[in-house]
């Protein structure tokens, strides 16, 4: 589904991603871990099409198409969803109106008729229930005055509504207490299907107690330096990142 080949990207002339290789198949959950500043969020942003980053090399194929050629809205229509680390507050635009516009623009891209108000409302109510999202938040301005937990839950709710092929969760656990973390994770797990792939970007292992990955990758200095099964996350939790750093430094020194 997703094939990343030697991806390089920089911001303001500084290279952050220095050759990423990763393949994600339908139904798989990949965790990307790594110390602060290793490039985890940059990878998520580049995949979603954030324009501040300049792709300086490599290729990304998504469902057989060149992802890097697509505008962010086209990527979304093709089935990529980024759950933001810091969801943006948008005063004056209600969550419901925002989502209705999004759903219908995506349907238009896919050659489908727009949903009418009744169909849309029915679908949204079901999805809200699924992720334990309070209906009253839907009528409020998007994320405005939402608590940290409400914002993250709103991200998962949007994911439920948009039904992406590939969901990228960027530090979804940051700023959440344990209860909020559990609710958000439950939402993500309910959305797991044999077709949908998920990339979980996180600094800490604790999220992976709830969202159990098939593979764990460690990103360090813009490269994936280690990949392994879910147990790798536990090892990192126990030993920290220093031993990985030491391994890498030793290799570069040779």
């Amino acid at each position, binding site marked *: 589904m997703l094939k990343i080949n030697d991806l390089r990207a920089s911001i303001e002339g500084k290279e952050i991603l220095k050759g990423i290789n990763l393949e994600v198949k339908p139904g798989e959950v990949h965790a990307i871990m790594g110390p602060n500043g290793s490039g985890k969020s940059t990878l998520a942003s580049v995949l979603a099409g954030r324009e501040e980053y300049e792709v300086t090399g490599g290729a990304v194929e998504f469902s057989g198409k060149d992802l890097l050629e697509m505008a962010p809205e086209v990527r979304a229509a093709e089935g990529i969803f980024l759950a933001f680390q810091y969801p943006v507050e*948008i005063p*004056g*635009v209600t969550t419901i109106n925002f989502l209705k516009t*999004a759903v219908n623009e995506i349907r238009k891209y896919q050659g489908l008729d727009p949903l009418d108000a009744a169909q849309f409302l029915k679908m949204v109510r079901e999805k809200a229930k699924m992720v334990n999202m309070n209906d009253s938040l839907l009528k409020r301005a998007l994320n405005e005055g939402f608590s940290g937990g409400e914002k993250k839950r709103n991200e998962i709710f949007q994911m439920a509504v*948009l039904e992406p092929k590939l969901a990228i969760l960027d530090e979804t656990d940051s700023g959440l207490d344990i209860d909020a973390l559990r609710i958000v994770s439950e939402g993500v797990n309910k959305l797991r299907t044999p077709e949908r792939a998920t990339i979980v970007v996180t600094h800490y292992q604790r999220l992976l107690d709830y969202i159990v990955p098939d593979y764990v990758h460690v990103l360090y200095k813009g490269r994936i330096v280690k990949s392994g099964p879910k147990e790798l996350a536990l090892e990192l939790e126990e030993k920290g990142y220093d031993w990985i750093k030491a391994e890498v430094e030793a290799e570069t020194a040779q």
Partner: protein
Amino acid sequence: MSTETIDLKTRLVTDFYAREAVMNGEAQSEFHQTKRQALGIFEDRGFPTPRNEEWKYSNVRDLISHQYQFAGEHAVTEEVIDSLRIANLTGNILYIVNGRFEEKLSTIVSPADQLQIKPLHEAIKERPELVSTYFGQLAKSESDSFTALNTAFAHDGVFIHVPAGKVVDHPVIIRFISDARAENVGSNPRNLFIVEQNAQVKIAESYRTIGEERSFTNTVTEIFVAESANVEYYKVQNEAEKAYHVGTTHVRIVDNSHFYSATVSLNGGFIRNNLNIELDGQHCEAFMYGLYFPDGKQHVDNHTLADHRKPNSYSNELYKGVLRDRSTGVFNGKIFVRQDAQKTNAYQSCKNVVLSPDATMNTKPQLEIYADDVKCSHGTTTGQLDEEALFYMRSRGISKNEAMTLLMYAFCEDVVSQIKIDAIREHLEGVITEKLTKK
């Protein structure tokens, strides 16, 4: 070289004396003496230049380089009026065409004991005691050339009197139409609204141009809000590219009264709005909302003043602007807190989004505070659309254009939602949507 071109000022002054010469005894009236005095001031000062600090960013050179037919004939019929109607708008709807109060086109639904509406020149004859008490109390010819010009030619316009204790159920909508289909037209509408104790009324001024020639509208409105009265006042400008508009509204509110306003400038070649509010009583409140949305080469200038003269009053102001293309905007908001006005609360905010590198916004907040126990704040921001919000929306599948439209609409809606006459608010939402999707 043409020897026939005379400048606008000379032409106006000449007109004044020509009219005076054919007046009968009226030239001796007290009212005419006021006008004559105003003309003297206008003749002496002329139109303002950018050297005048109040007009620094609004150059009237282009406005005054043309001639206009004042109070001329027009061919605005019921059919034309029909084409300008605002859907679902009901109430007292008055038409002022090229500066003339057209009673035949107007509809008054409120009973006379609730609300009196007359052309100003009739009120001068029929309610001389009221007119002489209030006329020119706030709009001083000495303070501004355009006010002097308006006063010199004050004749038509709307006189509104709401007697004490009356709550007017239906809004008063005054539609100023410039019929510029045949020639350049000019008008000096002069309005006087007197709202007595405990009375309530909603009044809207709406400005439209029809035709392709130039129009020059120089309106002065004085509003007196007595003790515990409540006035909502809306001004909506949707004029043409060749429309020049200078509009001044003076308001005095006193003890326990409440004044609520929104000024929305959607279109017009050159717009200058002055909104001056005297808070001359305790526990009174003034709200000023504003929205301007120029494109092309349009220019919109809003000057506001909240003049706190007595203790314990409150003013709150929010103006927002969206500037596109080569348009220019000016916001000059002054808060004046006099020595006696302790415990004043006065807030002001002006937020702008500049969507084009060729558009310009000049903001100048001014606070002059002579009391020591007050709460005042002001803030202006001028910037582009929030990139992070745009990316967020695009990452959900919303196209860049649609995302910009949604963000802009939300930005404008903040002010538009303050308009409490439903039909006008809905009409504006429609015009804004159309304007947003045009480009």
